[in-house]
């Protein structure tokens, strides 16, 4: 690590820091007016992405849970593989790939957030499914219910609070992540950040940072509120 470091730059760091700090400090508040549209885009990336992720994650979770999977030897490992792949690749990398594939813009961001969310939501959801009370399943099955009816009447009511909690939690994380996806061209606040950084407009960068922090704080508050209500 150290051999590639240019120590002259490191020694220079305090001066650089004060230089950047000096350029950042009177924030250009007028720039705020150009940020409403990207902010709305960022919210949409996070929300629609979470929606896609959750919709795909539900069947994956049921296939991955030991007590609801149709086959332990084939389907379950496949579902677990989907979960692991989605979880180990950061959303920024997903966005990097998707921008190259489907072109820059909001869609790439939404799909990237969606793909990343599948693994997270499915993992927590299948753990919740595995922890359900089997007696209720048994009771519903004893009435002669079919497989689908067992899932509908015995399993879903038990995991519903956990499901909402997980989804809102993931939405909160996604807001955080979607603020920076624009760095690789996937739209939202990150795009403004990238253009301000490349024009060295540090006083605009400060405004963007403040907007990002405010958004994250608000989304964390909303998610904590909702989770307390459902769990």
């Amino acid at each position, binding site marked *: 690590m150290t051999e590639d470091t*240019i120590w002259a*730059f490191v020694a220079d760091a305090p001066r650089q820091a004060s230089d950047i700090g000096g350029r950042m400090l009177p924030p250009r508040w007028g720039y705020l007016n150009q940020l409403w549209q990207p902010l709305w885009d960022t919210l949409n990336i996070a929300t629609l992405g979470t929606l896609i992720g959750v919709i795909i994650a539900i069947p994956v979770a049921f296939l991955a849970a030991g007590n609801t999977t149709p086959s332990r030897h084939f389907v379950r490992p496949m579902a677990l593989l989907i979960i692991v792949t989605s979880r180990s690749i950061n959303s920024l990398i997903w966005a990097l790939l998707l921008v190259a*594939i489907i072109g820059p813009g909001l869609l790439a961001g939404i799909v990237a957030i969606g793909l990343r969310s599948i693994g997270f939501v499915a993992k927590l959801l299948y753990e919740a499914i595995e922890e359900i009370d089997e007696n209720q399943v048994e009771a519903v099955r004893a009435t002669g219910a079919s497989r689908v009816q067992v899932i509908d009447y015995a399993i879903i009511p038990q995991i519903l609070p956990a499901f909402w909690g997980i989804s809102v939690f993931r939405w909160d994380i996604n807001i955080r992540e979607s603020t920076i996806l624009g760095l690789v061209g996937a739209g939202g606040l990150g795009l403004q950040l990238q253009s301000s950084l490349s024009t060295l407009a540090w006083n605009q960068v400060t405004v963007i940072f403040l907007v990002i922090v405010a958004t994250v704080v608000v989304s964390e508050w909303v998610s904590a509120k909702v989770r307390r209500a459902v769990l």
Partner: protein
Amino acid sequence: MTGAITSLRTWKRPPVLLKDPRWRWTILLGSAIYLVLAISSVEVNWFRVYEGLERGWKFIQGFLSPDFNSRWRDIQAGLVESLTMTLTSTAAGVLISVPIGIGAARNLAPAPVYMFCRSLITLSRSFQEIIIAILLVAMFGFGPFAGFLTLTFASIGFLSKLLAEDIEGCDSAQIEAIRATGAGWWQVVNYAVQSQVMPRLIGLSLYRLDINFRESSVIGIVGAGGVGATLNTAIDRYEYDSAGAILIIIIAIVLVVEYSSSYIRRWAQ
């Protein structure tokens, strides 16, 4: 809950959440309006998407037949950088976050120290790794050193916060007992607190190691070294087979780190 029973033969399942129908309808209607607005504001160039599908297919092929050889030297250099950053930053992060964590525990630290440490933690946690990396790369120049500093800074917020919460959740009877023997502050920390939080600290450090590796493969995109930079280059050159190879290596290392850390955590607790 027990409404008028109209007929014994019809039964409607009571709603699990949101018992009040007015709330249910308001939320449903609000979500529908939001969805329409949100979806209509997303501009999609379907022609571009259609053109890109071919490239997507090429990428999937590259992922299925990864090319480890032609860029192996770059990949190897990136991986070594990533792993070095991960290990050093986790170690440095743990070393720094232990005193901060103790300082941020209400039952051990006086109020001014507590406020100071808590504000450090909030500062570190409110920004994403990538944003910190952008700033630190601008200050310290390109390369893994900036990445190391980024990951250390991010680890401090994470570890100190969880450590502080764990210390606050300690069994106060044990602290009281040690204090009753006439022990000083250091001795209380050493004999009463440390023995209670140690297993959790080991677990947290390993978990952070796991997170740091994942992050170290990303912050290269903004110039902070590591395998992320190699991946970014591979995708920019449209070398999807090399990119596939890098992704497979990342997934494999994440899996190994995750399973071994969960194994060690189970052993430690």
